[in-house]
């Protein structure tokens, strides 16, 4: 029978195959007594599949083919079993999904490496998945949005079909970590039978325009067995509102800056003008601190000043009747004192002291107590002297005794019976009183600021300057033979002119 012959041939062929492949495929009857741990076994959970990989300690041995056997210590006397997927394989790893299904079991792999039919290595080991299995993280991608990140996890399309409750991944959890600005948050996901295919997890409630980094790893009983994936980072886009807010904030800052600038410049201008914060600082030119003494000239020595005594004279004002007629003594007599040193609101009249001259009331003039004050030096003419003044100008001067006739520094007006115009302390040259009374110029002179100089060596007719107007008092110069106030020389006084002087030099007020 033909099929019978073929069956025999096939059996013979398989027998030959077993003979040639004996060392690799024949299950070892016994384990070697000595522990041969020349291999390093490593179990890795990759895509929910336990992958056993190995590495020879002696790298000089280079097998070309590997065959894997395994058993466990469950106590059921499980014999050493060949892993068909890893029989005579050239790879240095083996997928044991269908063989190793419990985390809490001690698995015993045995590896035989050969080259050209010769066994080069025969090693064994022990693997307890709960403590020895390394958990590789799944593949994932991230995509950032305004306030959330989508984490897309790439799981295998289907889980290995095992008995219920079996599978090395059942008691694991997936940890997703998000990191931003040094803060790490963990999100835990339980892995079950429905964890298949691409799975998207959303990390929400995130801040826009912020950098976020994401990493994943499988978490078992031993954290040290978990391999963490590399960080994948993304920057979330900003919100459109945040841009508007930023623009508004910038505008606000600009407005604030301009306001502050305007206020500051306004305050600076006001301060500069002096409207506020007035400076009490003395100008530099008036700052004499540290200035050398030589810069300041010595004050001129004060001149000896004759003591002037103010004598209040009560007399009546005499009204000048514009008469330039004779100088009647009678009139003069009547009003020597009255006119002496008369001071009206219209001008200054110098009247020397006229002893005995009664003060007569000038018709039309009120009694007034007048005091004659000598002006000070400086702007006043030097020719001025104490005593009464008599100008040549328009000013009329009453010339009681003691009146001074200068060279014209003072204008002297014509006498009058009825009155006398006060002398002009501001003479107008040599011009005489040619003008009409109506053209006269009146000056108001403050006697307090008038100084009269008593010329040295002048005699008699020159009045001693201003003299007291009062009868009772007058200028006294003890050195001079000038008579007392009552005896002061007076040019037009009834009394004889005397050489009474009021003193030398300036008579200061």
């Amino acid at each position: 029978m033909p099929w019978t012959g073929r069956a025999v041939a096939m059996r013979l062929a398989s027998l030959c195959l077993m003979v040639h492949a004996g060392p690799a495929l024949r299950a070892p009857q016994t384990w070697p007594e000595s522990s041969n741990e020349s291999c390093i076994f490593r179990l890795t959970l990759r895509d929910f599949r336990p992958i056993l990989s190995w590495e020879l300690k002696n790298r000089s041995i280079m097998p070309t083919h590997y065959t894997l056997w395994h058993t466990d210590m469950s106590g059921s006397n499980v014999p050493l079993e060949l892993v068909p997927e890893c029989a005579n394989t050239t790879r240095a790893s083996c997928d044991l999904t269908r063989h190793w299904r419990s985390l809490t079991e001690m698995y015993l792999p045995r590896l035989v490496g050969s080259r050209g039919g010769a066994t080069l290595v025969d090693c064994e080991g022990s693997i307890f998945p709960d403590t020895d299995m390394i958990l590789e993280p799944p593949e994932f991608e991230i995509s950032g949005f305004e306030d959330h990140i989508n984490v897309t996890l790439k799981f295998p399309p289907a889980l290995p079909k095992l008995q219920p409750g079996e599978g090395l991944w059942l008691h694991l959890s997936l940890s997703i970590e998000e990191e931003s600005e040094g803060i790490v948050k963990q999100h835990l996901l339980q892995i079950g039978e429905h964890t298949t295919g691409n799975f998207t997890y959303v990390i929400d409630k995130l801040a826009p325009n912020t950098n976020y980094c994401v990493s994943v790893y499988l978490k078992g009983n031993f954290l040290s067995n978990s391999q963490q994936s590399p960080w994948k980072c993304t920057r979330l886009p900003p919100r459109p509102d945040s841009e508007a807010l930023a623009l508004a904030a910038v505008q606000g800052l600009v407005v604030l800056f301009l306001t502050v600038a305007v206020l500051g410049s306004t305050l600076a201008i006001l301060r500069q003008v002096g409207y506020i914060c007035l400076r009490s600082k003395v100008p530099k030119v008036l700052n004499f601190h540290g200035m050398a003494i030589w810069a300041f000239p010595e004050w001129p020595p004060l001149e000896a000043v004759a003591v002037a005594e103010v004598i209040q004279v009560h007399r009546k004002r005499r009204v000048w009747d514009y008469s330039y007629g004779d100088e009647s003594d009678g009139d003069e007599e009547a009003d020597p004192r009255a006119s002496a040193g008369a001071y009206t609101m219209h001008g200054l009249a110098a009247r020397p002291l006229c002893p005995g001259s009664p003060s007569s009331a000038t018709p039309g003039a009120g009694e007034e107590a007048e005091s004659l004050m000598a002006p000070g030096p400086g702007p006043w003419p030097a020719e001025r002297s104490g005593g009464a003044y008599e100008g040549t100008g328009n000013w009329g001067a009453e010339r009681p005794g003691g009146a001074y006739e200068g060279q014209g520094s003072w204008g002297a007006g014509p006498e009058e019976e009825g009155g006398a115009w006060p002398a002009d302390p501001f003479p107008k040259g040599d011009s005489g009183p040619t003008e009409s009374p109506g053209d006269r110029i009146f000056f108001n002179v403050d006697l307090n600021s008038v100084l009269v100089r008593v010329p040295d060596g002048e005699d008699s007719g020159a009045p001693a300057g201003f003299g007291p107007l009062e009868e009772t008092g007058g200028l006294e110069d003890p050195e001079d033979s000038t008579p007392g106030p009552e005896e002061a020389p007076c040019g037009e006084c009834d009394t004889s002119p005397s050489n009474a002087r009021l003193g030398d030099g300036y008579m200061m007020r």
Partner: protein
Amino acid sequence: MTNRCLLRLTILLCLAGAALSVNYGVLRFQQQNSTSACQRLLRQLIRSPQHCLDDTKDFQIPEEVKQPCQVQKKEAMVVMHEMLQQIFSLFWRNFSSTGWNETIVENFLQKLHWQMDRLEEAMQEGEVPSESRTMLRLKIYYLGIVRYLKAKSYSRCAWTVVQVEILKNFSFLNGLIDALRD
């Protein structure tokens, strides 16, 4: 006045109760860390188990311990304490003749003791449930391990097989620790 005192006392008692109540989160964290550490130390002691295949034995640990399902917190703590206590006594009495690394064994026993102390502190709060059938089976289980060692004359392979079995026990303890989750 009396009402105020009563109110204050009530508040004080509530706060004290909250402070003294078991923090299961902390307890779970402590137990997980200690269990992991003990498991690593025990794994270092196991050498060449592939040579002891002839001495392997199925000790038949109770299923409710192997796969706990809807276990109450108090009951889980009681079971955990019993397991830790049995493991401690198993290694404490007989390890001297094994030739193991003494440093590893001492660290292993120290961590076991610390783990039991934390569990006892938590068990003091509230009532302790009475012994259940799970506890009885558990005790029978460990008794069988002790008898196995005696029968094997505490040989190296017998100890290796026991070490592997205790290694599995710690994996089951992790499952019981998960029952302490709120």
